C-alpha cells in the first residue's frame, strides 16, 4: 500500500484549528466551565505545590479535581497570562481531538479514507462543538481525546504482545487520568472492554478461515490465549489510574461527597423538560440520529459486537430521567452525582468512525452506487445536500446557542471590583457576588480577596451549602427558595464568615439585603452595586486549613507533567515515523482487518429511509406542539401565559401586544402605567408557577381565574387574578386593567432632613485608621427583651432604642442557654427589626433561632418552600436563659422615615389601614412590624408584614393583614441582666444617659383590638427605597 499523507486528516486539522481557533475567543469565556478551570489554573500559577485554596467556600482543596489541564494553563500563563494559557490549551484540545478521532476511526474501520472522513466530520460534530463552545469542558475533551489516542496502542499490545505498546498505552492512560478522572474509569468500561472484545475476535479470526467460523469455543480459546496480556494491562492501568492521582482518591475518601445532589438538566425527563432534551440529547446527537440504524447495523456485526453493546448502554444512559433504566443501572447515588450528558458525548464519539465510514460510502463508495442505481443520481445529490445541510445547521445552531439563550449575564468589567477589593484593606473581609454567573470565577482568579461562595460545588464544605441543592449562592434565585433560604442565612449572620461586601449585578436581591441589615456603599463604574454590612470583624491573619502530607503535594505537583513527558518520549518516535514517513513501517495490525465496502446492504438503506421518515414525523409533531404552546393568541390560556411571561421578563412591548388593541392604550401610555408601579411584586418577583381556571368561555369572550406563585427575595406570594379576554380576528387578547387615579394636592414638594456623612479616614493613608478618626459607637438601650416560645420554636423579642445623638445601624445577636448555662444556639435578628434608627427612635425586634435548614434529612425538603419560613433550630435541651448583644455603628444611609400609618378598621380577625408616603422618595417595599400585647400591655410577640405594593411620593397604599390566630405564646424568661450594648451592660449604660426614663411611655397609644388573647397592637414601619434620589 502506498503510504501517502492523509489529505482528509490534514484538511480536518487545518479547518478545525481555523474554525474553532477563531470562535473560541467569542464563546469560551461565556461557557459554564471554562472560567472555573481558569480559576484553578490561577491557583496553580500562584502556588503550584500547595493544594489548599482559601478563596472559595472558606477554603477548599484543589485536590478535588485532576490537575493536568489546570497546571498546563498555569504554566502557559507565566508566558502570556491566564487567558492566553486557556486558549492555547483549548487549541491543543482541538488538535488532540481531531487526531484522536482519526486514530480511533482508523482502528475501527481499518480504512484511511473513512477515517479521514470521520476526522473531518468530527470537526463539526455537534456534540464536540457543544462540549467545547457551550459547556467549555476542556479537561473532559482532553481526557477523551487522549483516550482515543490510547486505543490503537492498547489494541496493538493485546494483539501483538510487544512490550513497547504496553508502555505507550499505559503512558497515554496516565495522561488521560491526570486530565480527567471520570473519563478513564468509564472509558475503561465503554471503550476498552469492547476493544478487548474486538481484539479477541480478530485473534479468533486469525485462527479460522472465515468470520462465520468464529464460534464461541474459538472465541473462548482466543480469550484464554490473550488472557495474560489483558489481565496485565488491566491491572497496570488500574495501578496507573489510582497512582497518578492518588491524592485525589485520598481526598475523595476523606471528604466523601455527602452533599445533597444538585439538580442537573441531564437527569431530567427529556420529554417533559424539552429544553434539557434539546441541550442534552438532540444537540449532541444531531444528524447521527438519522444514521442510528446504520450505526447499530455495523456495530452489531460479529467483530464489533461489544462496541454495539457498549453503544447501546451509552445511548440509554444518556437519556437521563426519560426512562427509569439509567437510574436502575447506575444506582441512586451514582445517578445523582454523575452528569449523564457525558454518556451521550461518548456515544456520539463512538459513532464517529461509522459516521465517517457512512459518509465515505455515500460520497464515493458502494452506497452511492446503490442509491444511484435504485433512485437515480439526482436523488443521491438531493439527499446528500439535505444531510449536509442538516449537519451544518446543527453545527451553526449549537455554536450560536448561547446567542439565542444566553447562559451567562452580560460580560462584567472586573477591574473596578478588583480595584475596590485592593484599596483600603477591603480584601481583609470575605465578599460575595450576586448575579455574576460563572464570571465570579474570573473575578476570584484576579483578586486575593476571599469569597464565601464558590463555583465548584463538589468542594463545598459549609453545611449551610452542602445541605442544599444549590451550586452557588450567587445565582440562588434560580434555585428557587432553597437558594434564597441558604443565602438568607449567610446574610443574617455574616460575622460568622467575616463576610462584609457584596457585589450585586442583580437588583432582585436588593430587598433581602436591605431587610437583613445591609447597606448600599456605592455603585462602581461598571454598574455593580457594592453593599456592605457594619460590625463585621476582619479575617484573622491565620486561617485554618486541612493540610496533607508533603509527598502528596509533591506527587500532585509533579505527576501530571511527568506523565505528559513520558507519554511524549514514548510516543514521539512513532509519531515521527507516522507523520514524516522517514522510514517504511510495517502496517499496524489492525489494518489487516479490512472491511468490505463493495456491497451496501439494501435492507439497511431501506431501514434508514423508514427511520428517517419516523424521525421526520416526530419532528413535525414536535414543531406543531411547540407552535400550539407558544402561539400566544391561540387560546385564552396561551394569552395569559404569554402575558405573565412577558411581565416576568419585563418584555413590556410583548405584553402590550397581548392587550386588546381596541382598548386604545398606546404603548407609551402602557409603559408609563407599568413604570409608575413599583413594589415587591412588580419589581422583585419572579414567576414561579402559574395555573389558570376558565370560569366562562364563549366564542369571543373568556374569563379566567389566574393563580400565580411568585418568588420574591423576601417571601413567596400567591395571587389570584381575574382576567377577561376577548377574541378579535381569530386572536385572543387580554383586557387591560384600571390604573391608580389618585392625584396628590401639590405639584412641587419640599422636604428638609438631616443627612450624615462619615468620612472614615480623614487622612489618605494606608496605615491603620487614626484613633481620633474612629467614631464612638452610638449608645443603644434595650428597653425590653424576653425569651418566648411560640408554637414549636423559641425567639427573643423586645424593643430597642437609639438613645444617642447620631443615627445607628443596629446588629442584634441572641444566644440561648439552658439552666446549667450550657450554650444552645445563637442567631442574629433578620428582618424583624428596623436596622437603621434615628436618634431616640425605637424599634421592636425578634430574633428567630434558625437551624441549618434541612440538615437532618434530605427528603424533608419541602417541594414548595417559602423564603419567609425558616427551619427552627433543633435544640437538645430546653433554653431557659438568654444573652442579648447589641452593637450600634454610625450609619448615614437608609434613614427615610416619612411614612405614616393609619389604622382604619379592625375586627377579631383582621386589621386594615392605609400607609401614606409624606416624603420625596418612592417607597419600594414597606414593611410593617407588628407587636402584640396582652391585656396588661405586656409585649408578647412581634410579627411582620411586607406590603406587596410600593408607595409613590405623596400617595397612599392600603394594607390588610390577618391577626394571629389563637397560638399562645409562652414567656420563658424576662430577665434582662444578660443584655449588653456595645459590650457594656445595658442597665449601666442606660441609667447613665436616661436616668429618669418614663417607663411604658407609649402604652396609651397602642391600638386596642378585639382578640381573645391579644388585646393591643402596635405598628411600626420600615421602608426599603429601591432607587434613592
Amino acid at each position, binding site marked *: 500500500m502506498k503510504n501517502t499523507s492523509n489529505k482528509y486528516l490534514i484538511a480536518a486539522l487545518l479547518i478545525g484549528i481555523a474554525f474553532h481557533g477563531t470562535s473560541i475567543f467569542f464563546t469560551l469565556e461565556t461557557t459554564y466551565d471554562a472560567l472555573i478551570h481558569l480559576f484553578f489554573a490561577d491557583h496553580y500559577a500562584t502556588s503550584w505545590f500547595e493544594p489548599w485554596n482559601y478563596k472559595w467556600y472558606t477554603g477548599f482543596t484543589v485536590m478535588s479535581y485532576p490537575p493536568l489541564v489546570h497546571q498546563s494553563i498555569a504554566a502557559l500563563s507565566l508566558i502570556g497570562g491566564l487567558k492566553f494559557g486557556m486558549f492555547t490549551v483549548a487549541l491543543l484540545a482541538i488538535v488532540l481531538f481531531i487526531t484522536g478521532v482519526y486514530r480511533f476511526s482508523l482502528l475501527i474501520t481499518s480504512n484511511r479514507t473513512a477515517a479521514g472522513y470521520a476526522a473531518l466530520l468530527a470537526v463539526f460534530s455537534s456534540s464536540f462543538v457543544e462540549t467545547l463552545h457551550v459547556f467549555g469542558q476542556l479537561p473532559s475533551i482532553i481526557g477523551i481525546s487522549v483516550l482515543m489516542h490510547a486505543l490503537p496502542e492498547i489494541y496493538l499490545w493485546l494483539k501483538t504482545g510487544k512490550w513497547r505498546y504496553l508502555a505507550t498505552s499505559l503512558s497515554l492512560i496516565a495522561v488521560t487520568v491526570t486530565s480527567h478522572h471520570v473519563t478513564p474509569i468509564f472509558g475503561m468500561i465503554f471503550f476498552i472492554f469492547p476493544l478487548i472484545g474486538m481484539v479477541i475476535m480478530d485473534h479468533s479470526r486469525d485462527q479460522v478461515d472465515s468470520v462465520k467460523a468464529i464460534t464461541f469455543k474459538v472465541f473462548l480459546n482466543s480469550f484464554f490465549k490473550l488472557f495474560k496480556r489483558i489481565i496485565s494491562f488491566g491491572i497496570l492501568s488500574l495501578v496507573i489510574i489510582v497512582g497518578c492521582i492518588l491524592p485525589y482518591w485520598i481526598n475523595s475518601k476523606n471528604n466523601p461527597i455527602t452533599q445533597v445532589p444538585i439538580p442537573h438538566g441531564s437527569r431530567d425527563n427529556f420529554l417533559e423538560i424539552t429544553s434539557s432534551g434539546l441541550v442534552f440529547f438532540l444537540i449532541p446527537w444531531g444528524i447521527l440520529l438519522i444514521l442510528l440504524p446504520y450505526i447499530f447495523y455495523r456495530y452489531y456485526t460479529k467483530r464489533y459486537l461489544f462496541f454495539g453493546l457498549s453503544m447501546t448502554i451509552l445511548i440509554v444512559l444518556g437519556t437521563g430521567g426519560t426512562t427509569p433504566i439509567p437510574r436502575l443501572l447506575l444506582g441512586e447515588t451514582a445517578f445523582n452525582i454523575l452528569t449523564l450528558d457525558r454518556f451521550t458525548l461518548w456515544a456520539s464519539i463512538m459513532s464517529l468512525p461509522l459516521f465517517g465510514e457512512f459518509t465515505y460510502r455515500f460520497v464515493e463508495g458502494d452506497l452511492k452506487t446503490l442509491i444511484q442505481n435504485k433512485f437515480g443520481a439526482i436523488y443521491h445529490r438531493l439527499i446528500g445536500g439535505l444531510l449536509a445541510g442538516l449537519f451544518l445547521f446543527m453545527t451553526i445552531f449549537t455554536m450560536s446557542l448561547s446567542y439565542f439563550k444566553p447562559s451567562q449575564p452580560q460580560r462584567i468589567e472586573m477591574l473596578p471590583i478588583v480595584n475596590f477589593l485592593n484599596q483600603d484593606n477591603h480584601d481583609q473581609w470575605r465578599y460575595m457576588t450576586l448575579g455574576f454567573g460563572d464570571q465570579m470565577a474570573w473575578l476570584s482568579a484576579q483578586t486575593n480577596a476571599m469569597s464565601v461562595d464558590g463555583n465548584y460545588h463538589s468542594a463545598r464544605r459549609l453545611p449551610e451549602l452542602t445541605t442544599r441543592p444549590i451550586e452557588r449562592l450567587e445565582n440562588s434565585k434560580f434555585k428557587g427558595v432553597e437558594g434564597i433560604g441558604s443565602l438568607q442565612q449567610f446574610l443574617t449572620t455574616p460575622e460568622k464568615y467575616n463576610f462584609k461586601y457584596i457585589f450585586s449585578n442583580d437588583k432582585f436581591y436588593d430587598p433581602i439585603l436591605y431587610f437583613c441589615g445591609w447597606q448600599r456603599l456605592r455603585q462602581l463604574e461598571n454598574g455593580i452595586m457594592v453593599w456592605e454590612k457594619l460590625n463585621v470583624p476582619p479575617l484573622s491573619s491565620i486561617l485554618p486549613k486541612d493540610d496533607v502530607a508533603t509527598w502528596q503535594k509533591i506527587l500532585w505537583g509533579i505527576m501530571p507533567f511527568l506523565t505528559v513527558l513520558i507519554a511524549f518520549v514514548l510516543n514521539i518516535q512513532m509519531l515521527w515515523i507516522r507523520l514524516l514517513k522517514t522510514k517504511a513501517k510495517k502496517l499496524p495490525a489492525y489494518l489487516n482487518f479490512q472491511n468490505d465496502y463493495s456491497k451496501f446492504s439494501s435492507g439497511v438503506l431501506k431501514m434508514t429511509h423508514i427511520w428517517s421518515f419516523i424521525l421526520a414525523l416526530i419532528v413535525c409533531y414536535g414543531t406543531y406542539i411547540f407552535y400550539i404552546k407558544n402561539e400566544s393568541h391561540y387560546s385564552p390560556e396561551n394569552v395569559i401565559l404569554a402575558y405573565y411571561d412577558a411581565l416576568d421578563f419585563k418584555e413590556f412591548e410583548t405584553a402590550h401586544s397581548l392587550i386588546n388593541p381596541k382598548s386604545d392604550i398606546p404603548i407609551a401610555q402602557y409603559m408609563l402605567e407599568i413604570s409608575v408601579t413599583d413594589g415587591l411584586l412588580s419589581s422583585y418577583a419572579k414567576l414561579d408557577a402559574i395555573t389558570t381556571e376558565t*370560569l*366562562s368561555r364563549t366564542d369571543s369572550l373568556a*374569563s379566567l381565574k389566574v393563580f400565580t406563585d411568585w418568588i420574591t427575595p423576601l417571601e413567596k406570594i400567591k395571587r389570584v387574578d*381575574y382576567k*377577561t379576554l376577548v377574541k378579535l380576528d381569530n386572536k385572543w387578547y387580554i383586557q387591560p386593567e*384600571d390604573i*391608580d*387615579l*389618585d*392625584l396628590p*394636592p*401639590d405639584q412641587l414638594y419640599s422636604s428638609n*432632613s*438631616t443627612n*450624615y456623612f462619615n468620612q472614615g479616614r480623614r487622612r489618605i493613608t494606608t496605615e491603620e485608621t487614626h*484613633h*481620633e478618626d*474612629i*467614631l*464612638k459607637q452610638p449608645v443603644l438601650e434595650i*428597653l425590653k427583651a424576653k425569651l418566648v416560645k411560640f408554637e414549636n420554636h423559641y425567639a427573643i423579642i423586645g424593643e430597642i*432604642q437609639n*438613645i*444617642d*445623638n*447620631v*443615627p445607628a445601624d443596629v446588629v442584634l445577636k441572641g444566644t440561648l442557654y439552658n439552666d446549667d448555662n450550657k450554650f444552645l444556639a445563637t442567631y442574629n435578628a433578620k428582618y424583624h427589626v428596623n436596622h437603621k*434608627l*434615628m*436618634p*431616640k427612635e*425605637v424599634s421592636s425586634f425578634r430574633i428567630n433561632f434558625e437551624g441549618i435548614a434541612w440538615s437532618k434529612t434530605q427528603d424533608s425538603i419541602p417541594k414548595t418552600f417559602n423564603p419567609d419560613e425558616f427551619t427552627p433550630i433543633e435544640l437538645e435541651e430546653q433554653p431557659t436563659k438568654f444573652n442579648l448583644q447589641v452593637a450600634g455603628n454610625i450609619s448615614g444611609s437608609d*434613614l427615610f*422615615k*416619612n411614612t*405614616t*400609618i*393609619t*389604622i*382604619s*378598621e*379592625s375586627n377579631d380577625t383582621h386589621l386594615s*389601614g*392605609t400607609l*401614606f408616603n*409624606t416624603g420625596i422618595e418612592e417607597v419600594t417595599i414597606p414593611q410593617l412590624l407588628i407587636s402584640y400585647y396582652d391585656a396588661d400591655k405586656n409585649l408578647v410577640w412581634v410579627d411582620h408584614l411586607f406590603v406587596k405594593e410600593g408607595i409613590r411620593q*405623596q400617595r*397612599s397604599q*392600603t394594607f390588610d393583614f390577618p391577626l394571629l390566630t389563637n397560638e399562645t405564646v409562652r414567656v420563658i424568661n424576662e430577665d434582662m441582666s444578660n443584655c449588653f450594648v456595645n459590650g457594656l451592660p445595658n442597665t449601666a449604660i442606660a441609667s*447613665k*444617659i*436616661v436616668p429618669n*426614663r*418614663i*417607663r411604658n*411611655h*407609649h402604652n396609651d*397609644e397602642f*391600638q386596642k383590638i378585639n382578640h381573645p388573647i391579644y388585646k393591643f397592637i402596635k*405598628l411600626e414601619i420600615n421602608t426599603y427605597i429601591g432607587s434613592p434620589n
Partner: protein
Amino acid sequence: MTFKYLYISFISLLLLTSTVVVNTLESDATYTLLTTKREFIAGESIALRFAFTGDSEVLLYASNSYGSILLEPVVNDKELKFMLPEVMSNKSGVFNWQLQTTSHPISGHITIQPKSKIEAIESYLGPPSIEAGGTDYTMLVVIPTDDLDNPLADSTSVTIKHQFLTNTYVSDVMTKNGFAYKNISSETKKGRMLISSSCLDLNSKEFDVNVMPAIPTDFKIDSERIHDYADGNQITTFKTSVIKDRYDNIVSDGTFVTFFITNTAGYKSKTSGTTINGMASANMLHPDFEDQWSVKAYVEGMANSDTIVLNYKQAISDFEVAFSEDNRTLTLGPIQSFMSQRVPDGLTIKLSIYKDGMLVHQPIKDTFNGMAEFYLDKDRYPKGVYDVELKTAGIVKSYKTINL
C-alpha cells in the same frame, strides 16, 4: 569473651573519669562583675564586664521590656565583655541579666533611665463625643516621650489645656507610670471642646470633643392646614416647639419624634418627623370623613407634648348612585365637595358585595372627575340576589336584594 569484659570495663572507666574531669573544670570557674554603674541613660552604649577564671564559653541571658536575648562575650585577657545591642540599650526600664554558668549562676539588674529631653507627645483621647450635663466626661492620656520613644521619667509635669465656649482651662498633671491623664467633664452647654497638652515646652496637636445635648424635655405641638374639611386630599402638618434638654440646649438634629393621632372611633394613626434646629414636623393626610383628632407627640421614654385637638368638617354631604338596566354597572357621582366642586381625583370608594349575608368581595375604586364606576362581572357574580353597600367619605349607602 574475656576481651568483651575488658572493653566494657575500659569504656566505663573512661566515661567515669571524663565526668569527673568536667566536674572539676566547672567548679574551678569563677566570675565577678566588674561594672559598677547600675544606672544608665537610654541610648548610651552599655557593656557588662566580668572578671573570670576558667571557662570563657559562657552566655549572658538579657531581658527587658523589649524582649529577651542571649549574648556572647568578647573575651579580653581574663575579662568578659557583654555589649548590649542597641535595641535593648535604647529602651528605658529595668534591665535584668543572668550569667549562664552551670555552677554559680550570677544575676542582677541595671536601670536604664529615659532621656530627659522630650521629643514627642503621644496623646489619646476618648470618647470623641460626650453628653452635656457634667456627668459625662472624656479622658485625655498623654505620654511624653524622648527621641528613642521612651516615656519620660515619672513626675514629669504635663500641662493639659482645654477650651470650651469662652473659657480656657489649664491644669498640670504629673506623669505616673509613664503617662499623665485627665478626665474632662462636660458642662451644661453643648458645643465643641478643644483640648491640647504640653510638656517641657513641647506642645501637642489639637484634639476636639463634641459635647452633645442631653435628652429632651417636654415640648409643645401645633398644627397647620390649608382648610379644615375632611377631603381626604390635603395635608395637615404638625410641628413641635423647639425641643430642648434640661440645660436649655437644643436637641441634636435628627431626633426622632412620633406623633400619635387618635380619632373619634378610637383608631390610631402615627406619623413621625426628625428635628432640625430642635423642631420636628410631620405630615398627615386629611381624613375623608368628619372626624376629631387628638394628637400627642413623644420622644419615647424621655419627653412628650401636650395633646391638641383638631376637628375636620364633613366635605362631602351626599353622592348619587345609578344602576344600569342589568344592575351590573354601578355609577357613582358626581361626588361634590364643600363648595360643590367635584372632589379631587383619587377619593376611595369601597364596594361591599354580600350574598346571603356573606361578604363576597370588596372592590375598591378611586374617583375620576368626581365619578366612579363599578362593573359586576357575570363570571365572578353569577345570577342571583345580592346586597351591595357603597362607602366613601364616611357615608354608607346600602342597596338590598339587587337582582343580577
